[in-house]
């Protein structure tokens, strides 16, 4: 096997392992939890009045009476064929339920990511390009500020001003692009933070490096150096935190979707866990795990293409 193939196989194997482990851990966790998904189908005040045979019948409906190992194997087997069963609460097929809300979350996450990257580059560019110390200092405080503002707070504030008072954007639900603006901005702020922090630092680092000096010497303008030389090389480290960024997006999406009453994977995850909707939780976790794995795999595979040094070690037979 060539080193490159070996590298790809190793990374893909790791990704598959992560997905399997996520499925298994989810299953175990939901079984270890003290609450019973069947109980959560009833009025909590009525729980102790429900005859055991009724509970047994309901549990039977979802296969919860089978031995745990059998349930696990059964669910795993079906999951391999893409069948995660039906949601305990709604009765919808899990795959359909997730696919129903996925586009809405993807639009939100992709839009927020694009906006976050724009904001982050904006901050880094201003911080690097300006020669006013006060402006640089101000701009450099923005990333940590962005990380510390709770999504909940910024969301409610933005609703208050731009929706309730000005009426520019709808306050809830899905009504085309106008419904997307406020959630996008809300979610983009905390996601932009870490990216901007990283960019500011690597911009500064690259600005001091030898090849920039060479460019200066050749008479390039400041703008040309930033766009032509620094930008490309400084962007590379940002790619490595793609996984972290994705995590931030998912975490932020739960709150953003709740505040703006949007449908989405984040909110669905929250309710699924609250109601111990095992099939639904398993389906969502596998989806998220696959996305994580694919993103990290993509980064791993793209990196050698972008970074000649890594490519060199790879061809030298030292995958890693």
């Amino acid at each position, binding site marked *: 096997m060539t080193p490159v193939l070996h590298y790809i196989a190793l990374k893909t194997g790791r990704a598959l392992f992560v997905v399997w482990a996520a499925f298994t851990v989810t299953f175990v966790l939901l079984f270890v*939890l*003290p*609450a*019973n998904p069947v*109980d*959560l*189908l*009833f*009025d*909590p*005040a*009525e*729980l*102790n*009045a429900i*005859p055991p045979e*009724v509970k047994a*019948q*309901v549990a*039977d*409906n979802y296969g919860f009476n089978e031995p745990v190992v059998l349930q696990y194997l059964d669910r795993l087997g079906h999951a391999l064929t893409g069948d995660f069963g*039906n949601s305990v*609460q*709604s*009765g*919808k097929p899990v795959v359909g*339920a997730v696919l129903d*809300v996925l586009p809405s979350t993807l639009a939100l996450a992709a839009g927020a990511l694009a906006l976050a990257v724009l904001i982050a580059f904006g901050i880094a560019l201003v911080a690097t390009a*300006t*020669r*006013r110390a006060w*402006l640089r200092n101000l701009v450099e405080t923005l990333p940590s500020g962005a990380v510390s503002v709770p999504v909940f707070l910024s969301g*409610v504030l933005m*609703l*208050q*001003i*731009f*929706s*309730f*008072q*000005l*009426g520019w954007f*709808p*306050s*809830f639900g*899905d009504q085309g692009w106008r419904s997307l603006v406020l959630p996008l901005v809300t979610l983009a702020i905390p996601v932009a933070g870490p990216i901007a922090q990283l960019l500011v630092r690597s911009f500064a680092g690259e*600005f*001091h490096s030898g090849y920039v000096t060479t460019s*200066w*010497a050749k008479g390039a303008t400041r*703008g040309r150096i930033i766009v032509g030389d620094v930008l490309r090389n400084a962007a590379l480290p940002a790619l490595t935190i793609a996984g972290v960024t994705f995590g931030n997006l998912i975490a932020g999406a739960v709150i953003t979707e*709740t*505040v*703006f*009453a*949007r*449908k989405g994977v984040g909110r669905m995850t929250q*309710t699924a866990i*609250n*109601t111990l909707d095992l099939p639904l939780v398993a389906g969502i976790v596998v989806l998220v795990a696959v996305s994580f794995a694919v993103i990290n795999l993509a980064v791993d595979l793209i990196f050698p293409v972008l970074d000649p040094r890594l490519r060199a070690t790879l061809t030298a037979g030292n995958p890693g």
Partner: protein
Amino acid sequence: MSDLRSSIENAESGRRRWPWIAGGAVLAVLLAAGITVALARGDSGAKAAGDGSPARGGTLQFALIDYQRSPDPQWGTNYAESLIGNNVTDKLTWQDPDTGEITPWLAESWEYNADLTEFTFHLRKDVTFSDGTRFDSAAVKANFDQYVHGDQKLGINPNGAVLLSGYVETRTPDDWTAVVRFAKPLASFLQASSFTANAQPGFLSLATLKLSAEQRTDATKVIGTGPFVYESWEEQVKTVLVKRKGYNWAPPALRHQGEAYLDRIVFNTIPEASVRTGSLASGTIDATLDVGTTDEEPLRAKGFKIIHRSVSGTAIYFNFNSRLFPTNDIAVRKAIQLGWNRESIEKTVLTDSYSIATSVLNKSVRGYVDYSGSVLKYDPEQAKKLLDDAGWKLGADGIRVKDGKRLEVKLLGISNLVVNKPAYESVQQDLRKIGIDLQLTVVPIPDYSAQVAKAKTDWNVTAANRSRNDPAALNLVYNPKLGNSSFLDANSTGVDVNEVTTALDSLETTLDPAERDAYAKTAQDLLVEKYALVNPIYNPSQVIAHADHVHGIVFDAQSRNHFVNAWKSNGK
């Protein structure tokens, strides 16, 4: 290297400074303008009301905290589900919210045998499902059979097994007569036939009953006889209902002729309280349920109407575990009843929409008896005396001790109603003053459900409420043969378990109003006064805020809403 860079930089100084400054200035101006316009618009309130005669048409934008998890109205545990179910399906009977009397709806009349095991309903002959098929005794039978037994193949749960406990069968001697039979007396079935709360017996068409749980998630296939039909159901987001053409069988008690006034209702799910009230204030929605106690006054001040109804059934109660130390001591239970200040909860936690409990039953339930003059009052001196007499001595930390054990009372409660926790904390503070350490664990529903399984051995008090406008709710909650919330058994010291069981059993044995009132009184006397098995706290409420142009939203006997009578006077 750095010298070189800085010298080149310096040589370039002075350029491209202004774009940043200009950009910042533009941003600041925009923000300032936004806030100014926002403040100027701040006074937009509700519009003036109409002349009082109902107008037809319009879409009601309604908001609530929960979303409907499945369009199947025979299942559900939240208000979104019961509210929507009520407007898509009808019931056999209608319970008058004021008197508690059971009045006709899909059934024109009914009779029952002396044992209360057989109920014969004579159905209206003009009722149809929205798919055009007729509503008849076969439909009643098919619905009740599936409602009670479920259907394993279709993935349908036995949703009505508790409400219709002991259901045997429905006989259909003719198309318009349905005879519902039970294995044992079930007086409360008459009220159950009108039930509009969780997992309600609303009638679905025969075609709908043949659908699996999965197929029922296509809302347009869920067919009822109600004043509205499903247009769409979007999980997490909204459910849209449209007026049923040709509807003409609203409960006669509502005095509503013909179709619903509104063309459409949109039930919007808005989880955040501030977004619900903000959307109402800005005119995006017409009405919202789940109004927080702190939002009532500001909304009223802006010209919105606040309507509410106390949730019929039991109050929010502290059910005492009669088997677990220290609540196995009746003196402790009685001291807790007397040991907290009702007035301070009324002043600091509740609004006018809520009330302090004066019995385990809500005032609106038939058979309610007022105990505010006897044991459900604040009397810390009497409480202390009870504890002193029972041998509870004050310890060094202010908490009483007996036989070396502290007077610690562990409470398990649900945090779903915002009022619960502050109310319980108020009780906790007062009890501390008389030497009782009430330890609160107030958690979301899943955690509560998990803990309830261990209530017998781990918890002195479980705090919840039961929404059912019938005194037989007490039977469900406390009867040792059913819910047994006080864990009564032969070992319960100082409690005559047979006496309690007999009293609760008898609630299901008569529908004679006077007799039933007497049984309800006996049951409350035992639970509240004699054995102090329950410490009722407050009566929860459903609170709606709506714009001035919204009229006719009905609260039924279960405090759920019906919109057949609702209309809008702003022409939208």
